[in-house]
Structure formats: C-alpha cells, structure tokens
C-alpha cells in the first residue's frame, strides 16, 4: 500500500501548481465557455441596443419607456433574473445568455443615448447645411461622435458580463463559475481561487482590449487630451 501523496493538492492549499498542471484542460474548457457566454451576450445586447437608443433619441415618446424598462431590468438581481427565465429556457446556456443580454442592454442603451444626446446641435445643423441627409448625418456625424460614450458603456457591460457569467453556475452553465461552485461544495481551495483569479484576468483583459479598440476607432479624441 502506498502512502497518499503529500503535495499541495492533498494539503488543500490556496495556491497550487499541481492543480494548474493536472486540471489544465478543465480550466481551459471553462475559460472558453466563459468567453463564449460573455461575447455572445454582449454582441446580442449591442445589436438590440443601437436601434433602441436611436428610437429613444429620435422618437420623443419612446425615450421614457425605453429608459424605464431598462432601469427596472437592471434593478432585478442576477440570481432572480436567471430564475425568472427558467420557465422559458430551462437549464440551458441560452438562459444565461438571455439574462446577460438584458443586463448589457441596459448599460448600452443608456450610454449610447447619452452619447447621441451629447452631439452639439450646431454640429448637426452644420452637417445639414452641407447637404447631409438623415442617414448620412447619422452614420457620418452622430454615431462617430457618440462612439466614446458608447464604448464606455460597452466596456462596463463587458466587464459586468464577465463577472455575472459566474452566477450561471446555478443552472450549470457558468464558465469559471461552475468551477467555483463545485469547488465550494468540495471545499477545494485551489480550484476556487484559480477560477476567481482567471475571472478577474478575463475582465481586465477584455477591458483593455476594448480601450485599445476605442483609441483606434476615435483618433480625434486623442489629439485633444
């Protein structure tokens, strides 16, 4: 009979190199799932948010309801949001995506709308005076000027989504959250800490990537500061 191995896994230490090397594939799969859930949700949120923000900007009556609904959605705690969607989607990844879409929608609509509203009226009139039609005014003048505010919203939405994916563990689709959840039930310290740190790393990396994209997309804002 061999003695049990005396490594950091057996001692259940917080930091454990053996955990990283022996569970590499599990960790990788969880990270990939985490990234997929985040990216899909934020992209769907973005696709829905742009027309909503435009409608709220150009149809005066639409602004109140759009902002009210998104504020109410954002107030509902994440666990309750996922639970309310349970009858519709069952225990599936779609449930997590749907919940995250609703949260990112709120942040994106608010910020895109703020960006559009901040476009100076003089600028709009100047463009009209130069013969810009409504569509060209929107695409060539209003949207580019609203981009910094919209990107700020996108960054907040993405970072929040990375963090909220973990709650998806309640339905078994939480990316790294699954590892945190199972680690909690088995009192597995290295797994919980590693997955938590990876979550933060993903959030920070996504934030920096979007910041870089923003710099590249809006070269004119750099010259001013």
């Amino acid at each position, binding site marked *: 009979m061999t003695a049990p191995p005396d490594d950091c896994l057996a001692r259940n230490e917080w930091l454990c190199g053996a955990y990283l090397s022996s569970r590499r594939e599990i960790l990788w799969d969880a990270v990939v799932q985490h990234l997929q859930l985040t990216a899909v949700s934020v992209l769907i949120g973005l696709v829905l948010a742009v027309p909503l923000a435009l409608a709220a900007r150009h149809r005066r009556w639409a602004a109140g309801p759009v902002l009210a609904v998104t504020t*109410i959605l954002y107030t509902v705690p994440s*666990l*309750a949001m996922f639970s309310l969607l*349970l*009858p519709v989607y069952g225990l599936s990844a779609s449930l997590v995506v749907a919940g995250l879409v609703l949260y990112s929608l709120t942040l994106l609509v608010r910020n895109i709308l703020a960006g559009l509203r901040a476009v100076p009226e003089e600028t709009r009139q100047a463009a009209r005076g130069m013969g810009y039609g409504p569509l060209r005014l929107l695409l060539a003048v209003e949207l580019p000027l609203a981009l910094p505010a919209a990107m700020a919203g996108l960054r907040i939405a993405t970072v929040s989504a990375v*963090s909220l994916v973990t709650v998806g563990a309640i339905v078994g689709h939480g990316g790294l959250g699954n590892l945190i959840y199972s680690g*909690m039930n088995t009192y597995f310290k290295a797994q919980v800490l590693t997955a938590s740190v990876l979550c933060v790393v993903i959030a920070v990396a996504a934030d920096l990537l979007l910041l870089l994209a923003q710099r590249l997309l809006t070269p004119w804002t750099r010259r001013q500061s």
Partner: protein
Amino acid sequence: MNTLADAWSWLTTAANWSGDGGIWQRLGQHLFLTVVCLLISCLIALPVALVLGHLGRGGALAVNVSNIGRAVPTFAVLVLLLLTPIGGHGEWPTVIALVLFAVPPLLTNAYVGMREVDRDVVRAARGMGMTGRQLMLGVELPLALPLILTGVRIAAVQLVATATLAALAGGGGLGRIITAGFNLASTAQVVAGAVLVAVFALIVEGLFEAARLLVPGRLRGGGSG
C-alpha cells in the same frame, strides 16, 4: 403559462410564508442584512470620501475602486470568504462581501460630488474666513448631497442583489427560496422566489426614487448613476 400559475399558488400557500425558512423569515433576514450592511458601508465609505474629496487627494483610487468592484465577481468573493476561516462564523462571510460591494459606489459618488462643488463657491467660503471643517460640513457636504444620495441608492440596490447571491454560498435571505427551489427541482418555487426578490429590489429602488422626489428641488441629483 402553467408555471406562472404554479408559482402563484406557491406564493399564496400560507404554509410557505410562516415558520423556519418561510418567506417572512427570509424577508426579515434580507431586510436586516441590507439595512445593517448599508449602515456599516456608509460609516466606512462616506467619512473617507468626504475627507479625500475635501482635500482633493486620492482621486484616482476613489474613482477606480468602482471599476475594480465591477470586475471582481460577487459570487467568487462569497465563496472565497466561505472557504477562509471566517466561513465558520455564521453570517460573517455574507456581511463582509455585502460591505465590500456596497463601498465602491458610495466612495466614488461621494468623492465626485465633493469635487464637483463649484470652485468659486469654495473660494468665497474661504474668503469669508471659514475653517476647513466648516467648509467641508457647511458648504461642500450640502452641495454634494445629491450625488452622495445617488451613491447610497446604488449601494442599496447592490446590497439587495449581493444578499440574494449569498444564498448560493449558504447565506440567508430571499435567495434561499430560489436555491431551495433549484434543489427541489421545483420551477414554481424558483420563479416564486425570483418574483419576491425582484419585487423587493424594485421597492428599495422605488423608495429611494420617492425620497429623491420629496427633497427640495436643489438637492435632486441625476436619475441614474
């Protein structure tokens, strides 16, 4: 919708409201956690933010602490605290996590509020011979109040959400009804619990909105944060 009817009958069953683990008990726990932790967070965050804002120091920290708070998953912090020695002491992991996530919005909003006070007003107060303490408490604090209260509202909504999530890590509160529903595979109970949590969160938000409308016009802050 059959599930909704089931959820409604779960909610209207008197047995689910009373006794150990009943709705009244969970609601009491949730309310207690929210109020106590809001008080603790205010006591920690507001004096620091007022002094930093008055002195104009530590701005980068006060503003960035919100971004950091957003990137760190609440669920991960709850589980990490549960696995530390603190985890053995009843509700303490929940209380600490709640305070940790309520402090950033309080700190950031109060700091920004103090810094956004018109510099001319501050100079006039100094010219009238006010001491630093008089200036901070008599001039800057009242003028910063709208943003400070916005921070308190965001913190309160955040507290309700975090207290719900605490149920995943074995904490008390309305979230326990949801997690118990998942364990029983009872969609009706999950949805009923989610409705209770959502209504509770919306009432908290609504109370702050009502309070904002009741205070004199000059103290009203922006509607969103």
